[in-house]
């Protein structure tokens, strides 16, 4: 510990060292090892996919054979669909990674490592190269894997690779040097300048210049200022913040420490979702380590600077991701937004100047200080600098996290990196920006991903959730899903947001549910619904107080714009081409096949099927709720669905 503090942390960021210190660091970085190491991808996603079983098997194997070796539980490398992942590293050899590991395969790998059997050839993901170790013949490099090759991993650099709860390893890999360099060589104003010049924009959704935001707080005089890290990650479909905290918590802590120094905050909070217990646990461990090393606390490294981080757990309200609501929530109040100005930068938490930044934004800071603002600004496009992490999910071959330079096209992400649509189905749309965002369709797949291009096509960067949809997804249903989410999560302060979103949901339910009766009057009402959706959407956007209401209609307006034909089909033809809106189905009994066994009539929950025993039955359309029970119970295949 002493050696790390005295020799390593004093090095300049990025400076490498040789000799005795250098080789000690190689050991800490697990590049030079004298006994094998087993790495298991144990992020929430890994554990969900079965990594806990693999850990069990591995521990049992090692204790049974009395082998003393290290098991490192890493975060997520980003390839969730290949999980569980297990890597082994043998002394002098490159680390090799296995995907979709089962208990049997884990045993096979272990016996290969410890009994000298040949390494299994199936399920090999690839090898990592590090520190001049010997390479494995005939095994590709992870860096060349199509999923990883186009990526540029700055924020996710350590995720899934390094031990997230080893501060020694983080320091050995160059960590915390940017912070100390900041403290020693730059004034707070310098750091604000650097971050502004780097072009970094907030990754939490707004996309506001981070450096400029910091300057607001920097320029205010106050006896106390606060920094808050927004780890509420409310967008259902985004999980990069979770992965960063689980996989590399020290990077976030370092970023926060630099940010706090720049704005003059001595106290800070991480507001983290309660749904992320593992991230919370790892963050707490990492914070304790940083305190032990004197990187948090009073008079940090004799600089005269104090800094402390506290963790606050969210309580499951989407609106608490909004800055002012988040502040109220930390203060112990109902998480309702308030009008701005005053902006939190001048009057925030407990009435003091407060800067709120997203996890990914803060995790970018250490590399900006290490490699310089010009380097950062050289990545990306004219107006959007650096990289962005996206969470890929839905009907896509490979799911997980990808970090790409801004300006990469949506097509590259979906087809080149993530391998296109699952099961050879046809692509329909990708939803970006969650409940505030919109859809990108086939014709816009070639737009570069940056803040402005996405807005131009009616989507938005948001926090980076990308949910891919194929021909089996109904876009009206997707719009209904978001509206249902939003109307539940609206805090209720503004009438347009509270009532308007509910009305929009009702209209969408009307469209996707079975018409009450088949009259043309009803069809007209359903059709008027579409124009009402547009009107309501406009009013809600213009008259709501906070970002939630101001963007709430987006998913509906965007699907209406690109998939109006699907809406019209639902309304006029009562048809859902994706087969999702099952209530629109109509059922008929084939008189030739029906034997009159009466099973369907008995099972029908609404008694909509009539007919005498041994004579063909008949469905009374007005009573049918399209539940599909009759189709399931008919033994003679006599019921057809349209």
């Amino acid at each position, binding site marked *: 510990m002493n050696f790390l503090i005295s020799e390593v942390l004093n090095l300049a960021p990025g400076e490498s060292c040789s000799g005795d210190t250098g080789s000690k660091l190689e050991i800490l970085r697990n590049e030079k090892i004298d006994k094998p190491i087993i790495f298991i991808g144990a992020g929430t996603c890994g554990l969900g996919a079965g990594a806990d079983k693999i850990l069990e098997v591995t521990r049992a194997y090692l204790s049974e054979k009395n082998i003393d070796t290290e098991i490192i539980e890493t975060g997520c490398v980003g390839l969730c669909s290949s999980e569980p992942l297990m890597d082994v590293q043998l002394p002098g050899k490159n680390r090799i990674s296995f995907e979709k590991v089962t208990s049997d395969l884990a045993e096979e790998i272990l016996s290969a490592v410890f009994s000298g059997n040949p390494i299994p050839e199936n399920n090999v993901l690839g090898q990592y190269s590090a520190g001049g170790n010997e390479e494995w013949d005939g095994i590709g490099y992870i860096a060349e894997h199509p999923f990883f090759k186009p990526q540029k991993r700055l924020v996710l650099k350590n995720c899934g690779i390094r031990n997230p709860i080893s501060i020694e390893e983080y320091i050995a890999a160059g960590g915390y040097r940017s912070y100390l360099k900041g403290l020693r060589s730059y004034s707070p104003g310098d750091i604000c300048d650097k971050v502004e010049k780097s072009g970094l924009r907030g990754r939490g959704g707004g996309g506001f210049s981070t450096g400029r935001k910091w300057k607001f707080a920097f320029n205010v005089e106050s006896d106390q200022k606060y920094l808050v890290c927004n780890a509420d990650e409310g967008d259902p479909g985004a999980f990069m913040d979770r992965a960063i905290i689980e996989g590399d918590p020290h990077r976030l802590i370092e970023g926060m420490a630099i940010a706090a120094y720049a704005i003059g905050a001595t106290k800070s909070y991480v507001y983290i979702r309660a749904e992320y217990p593992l991230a919370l646990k790892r963050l707490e461990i990492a914070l304790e380590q940083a305190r032990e090393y004197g990187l948090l606390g009073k008079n940090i490294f004799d600089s005269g600077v104090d800094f402390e981080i506290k963790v606050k757990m969210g*309580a499951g309200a989407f609106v608490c991701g909004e800055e002012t609501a988040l502040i109220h929530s930390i203060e112990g109040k109902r998480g309702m937004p308030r009008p701005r100005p005053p902006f939190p930068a001048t009057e925030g938490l407990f009435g003091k100047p407060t800067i709120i930044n997203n996890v990914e934004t803060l995790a970018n800071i250490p590399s900006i200080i290490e490699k310089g603002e010009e380097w950062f600004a050289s990545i990306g496009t004219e107006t959007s600098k650096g990289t962005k992490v996206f969470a890929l999910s839905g009907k896509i071959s490979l799911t997980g996290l990808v970090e790409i330079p801004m300006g990469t096209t949506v097509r590259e992400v979906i087809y080149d990196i993530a391998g296109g649509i699952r099961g050879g189905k046809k692509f329909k749309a990708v939803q970006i920006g969650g409940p505030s965002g919109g859809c990108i369709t086939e014709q816009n797949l070639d737009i570069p991903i940056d803040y402005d291009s996405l807005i131009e096509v009616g989507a938005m960067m948001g926090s980076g959730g990308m949910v891919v949809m194929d021909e089996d997804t109904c876009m009206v249903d997707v719009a209904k899903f978001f509206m249902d989410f939003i109307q539940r999560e609206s805090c209720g302060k503004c009438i347009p947001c509270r009532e308007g979103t509910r009305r929009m949901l009702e209209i969408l339910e009307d469209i996707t549910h079975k018409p009450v009766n088949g009259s043309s009057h009803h069809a007209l009402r359903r059709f008027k619904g579409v124009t009402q959706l547009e009107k309501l959407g406009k009013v809600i956007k213009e008259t709501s107080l906070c970002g939630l209401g101001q963007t709430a209609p987006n998913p509906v307006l965007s699907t209406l714009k690109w998939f109006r034909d699907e809406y019209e089909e639902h309304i006029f033809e009562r048809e859902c081409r994706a087969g999702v809106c099952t209530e629109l189905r109509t059922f008929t009994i084939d008189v030739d096949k029906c034997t009159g066994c009466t099973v369907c009539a008995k099972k029908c929950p609404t008694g909509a099927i009539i007919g005498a025993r041994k004579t063909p039955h008949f469905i009374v359309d007005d009573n049918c709720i399209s539940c599909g029970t009759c189709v399931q119970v008919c033994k003679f295949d006599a019921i057809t669905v349209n």
Partner: protein
Amino acid sequence: MNDTTEQILVKYKNADRDSLIPILQEIQEVEGWLSEKMLTSVGRHLDMPVSKVYGVATFYNQFRFQPKGRFHIQVCRGTACHVLGSATVLEEIKKHLKIDVDETTKDGLFSLEIVACIGTCGLAPVININGNFHARVTTDSLRDIIESYRVQNNN
């Protein structure tokens, strides 16, 4: 009165209002839910009207006002899970256990809650039972999963 609540409150001596949510979270963590009595003692402890305590507690989705079952099932209803059929999964659970969302089975074994995204969207649809994640659930695997917990209870 409830000892656990008192024990937790003792830890928050001289606490201010900003401790309200952490206190409620800690009580719920131990008790599984928040009763009227618990909320009243919290109010008294923080010198706040109980109506305010209740106002805060009901604002947040996390807080429950009914005891939860021995096995608490959380169904993710986030976007990724929705696209991959979480609505059907939810219906199936409801049908299988004969309870609605936020209810507990009569034998007190299972309770059901929906949550928005547990952060494992890459493995959708996901459910979480007492902190254990079950990924890529299907209507078939679901029954086995639930029954395996029932068996666990009988042992």
